[in-house]
């Protein structure tokens, strides 16, 4: 459904993406991860058509985004949802209005937004302004907003990175449940989540995709040093959990 072919992105002779090839199939949940600054967010922007790559093509639902007029691209983009790391809600709108915003130039059907708000459990707070919400709640608004258009694919750009640990779980749970019915490209460092939910794990480093396989494969026998690093982290976590378990038994 989403295909990136040989994407090269360059600015001032600095390459931030080089020869990136990535495919996300219908219903698939792909987790993309890698060290900070390796180009994950940029990749998502390219996928959304917000940035034009220097070379390469982005195909979405059988259409080459580069070939579209800006108006057609805008229409196409409405089939994609995005959840940002820093929520990026509009402070001057209420929860309801924020979620209504993507529908404003569309069919203007209110229930769509209301259903999305209900699905993230914020119905009671729909008339609040973002500043009156907790971080977790803000991100739930961000999710509802992405869902309002009933997108074919949802991009997640580190949706839990700006959250207190206590809110991370509630967001991951929503993501988990959405992963059952939606095509998703998730940028995250939450490896347990990747292990549990991802159909495929893609590892990036310095603007390149260095490894791509099922999470279990990567975590068991990584072929890149980024993969090895994530495996370490996961093992550390497991070790810690085991410690906790034995302690509880004792």
């Amino acid at each position, binding site marked *: 459904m989403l295909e990136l072919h040989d994407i090269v992105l360059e600015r001032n002779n600095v390459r931030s993406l080089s020869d990136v090839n990535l495919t996300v199939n219908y219903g698939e949940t792909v987790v993309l991860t890698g060290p900070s600054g390796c180009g994950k967010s940029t990749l998502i922007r390219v996928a959304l058509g917000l940035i034009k790559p220097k070379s390469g093509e982005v195909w979405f639902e059988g259409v080459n985004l580069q070939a579209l007029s800006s108006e057609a691209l805008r229409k196409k983009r409405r089939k994609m949802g995005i959840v940002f790391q820093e929520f990026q809600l*509009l402070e001057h709108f209420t929860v309801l209005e924020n979620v209504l915003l993507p529908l404003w130039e569309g069919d203007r059907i*209110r229930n769509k937004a209301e259903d999305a708000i209900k699905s993230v459990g914020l119905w009671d707070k729909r008339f609040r302004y973002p500043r009156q919400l907790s971080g977790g709640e803000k991100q739930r608004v961000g999710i509802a907003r992405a869902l309002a258009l009933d997108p074919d694919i949802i991009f997640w750009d580190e949706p839990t990175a700006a959250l207190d640990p206590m809110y991370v779980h509630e967001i991951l749970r929503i993501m988990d449940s959405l992963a059952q019915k939606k095509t998703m490209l998730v940028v995250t460092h939450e490896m347990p989540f990747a292990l549990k939910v991802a159909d495929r794990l893609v590892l990036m480093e310095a603007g390149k995709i260095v490894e791509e396989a099922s999470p279990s494969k990567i975590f068991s026998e990584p072929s890149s040093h980024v993969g090895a690093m994530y495996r370490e982290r996961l093992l550390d976590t497991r070790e810690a959990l085991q410690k906790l378990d034995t302690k509880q038994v004792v």
Partner: protein
Amino acid sequence: MRGGFKLDLAIVIFLEIIVLSAAIIVAGHGFSFYVQRGLDDIIGGSDYQVIVQVNKNETANFIEGLKETYSGRDGFRYRVSKELGENTHVLLGYSEQDLKNGALDEVTRLVSSLPGYGGLAPLLDPAILVKGMPQETYPELIEEIHTWPEAKFAAKGPMGLYVVAKDRKHLDTIQDKLKDLTSTYYKWELDLKDHTNQEAAQARKMIDVALQGKKYWFTAAPAEGVIGDAVRLLKSYTSQLVFESELPVGAEVILSPETLKTGTKPKSSFLARVYTDGVFLIKGDSLELTGSEKAYLLDGTGYVKKALSEYRLESPRKDLEIWQPVTDAHDLQVSIQALADKVVQGEDFGILVREIEQLAKNLSLQVPSELNSQLSVLVLWDRVGRLPDGFRAELAQKLLDWGNAMPSDPLLRLKQSLPSWSDEDIAKSWQEIEAIARPKTVSVVTTETIPPIDGVVRQPAAEISEDIKSQIGGVVNSVVPFAALTVVVILLWVFMAIDHSLWGSYLETKNNHLTPLYGWIIGVLEMVFVVYVMPFEMSVIVKLVYVIVGGIGSAVVITFSNRISPLNAKSIEAGEALGLSKTELYRQVIVPDGRPGLWQLLNRRKLLSPRRFRNA
């Protein structure tokens, strides 16, 4: 709902022009009203032609009298203005017709006898002042001027003939017309060699003869007039000797109790000198004369020339001795304290005299005419700046002492408290003043073109220039657009800046390098419109300044758009990612996210509202 970004921008610009114009009008008129109000209170304003100071207690009576005199004249107005000390300022205004009919002269006569009269107020109207023309020519000139369409009215004022224009732009025309009108009058000036009064009198006689049967008027500089008055008045307080026979002008007369021989050089404390207008005592004091002294003419080197026949002594100072107390007074302290304060503060002695009169009236006391005379001398001395050092402080102290002592007749003590000037003192005074004011020229205004006498210099009689108060008025008027401009510039920076920078930020999102140019063009266009609709008459330069400042302001604002109205890149990205069009991105994200301004206000109607959604 559609209509797009460009329409929004156009409406914003239109609104800005309206706001700017309104600001200019409000600021301009507000400022000129404010200034006018202030000037009204100081000098009577443009509607009010006369300012009168009236004693506080007399205000009601005075107003009654005014109403009676001027009832039925619809143009007449008055306003009771500030209180200054004991006096109230009353501003009087007249209609144009009244002024043409000589209301100013009329009111001068009416008010000049009032206590505290402050004279004719300066006019703020655009006016030309004609100096140097004899007052006798005024009626004829005024009649002619009143036929001019540019002139509002002409009237005699304190400095000359005032010609008030209907509009400031007529001043030049009026000035030219006045030059024409007065061009038949010349001023002839004859230099004096010795600068003596005699020489001047002789010159005048010569001119009288030369111009017999012609129209001519002798003129004196205003200062000479005041000093001449002072000398004459001071002389009237100096004791005079009156002889049967005529004595040579310039000669000296000695008074001696002893019999003197011809040819001896006498010593005496009493000396008089012969002037054209009388023989005045210039040494000694007539109060010390016994009346048995004999008079001798001196020869110019100080020796007795001959004994003179009987003479009569006319001494105003003699009267001082025979003045008797009239009544008691016991509640004076407060009034005296106030009086003393004013003396120290430098209150005009003329006003003090009136206050003393008032005080006496309140206490049913009579002010002896001698005291009045003495005070009148003070008035003059003060006006010609010849009051002794520390005199005021001394007088104030004496007034207080007098009040504290509660004398049987306060005014008698007041008289005693005044410095005792002898005839000699007074004579010295007027001699000194006269020395300063020796006539240097004799001048005459005439319609003749041929000089009446050899050696005279001819020049036009009338000095025509814009009145100084009119110039102040002009400055006030020209300040108005600048005040408005200031307000506009402030508005531009504080209020408009937001809209312009929003637009600038928008252009920057398009990476538009011509942004400052657009800003400049928009600013210039706005200002051109604003200047076009502005109701003030302004010079081209001021208009240009508006346009340039507007343009530069807008260009600068737009250049710094991102600092003034920073765009939130993340919000924009979110909006873009949600598939918003440029217009909606601006309406829903950028404008409401920016700083509050006109645009944001206007944008409110375009904001997404849940009510505009329907249920499926």
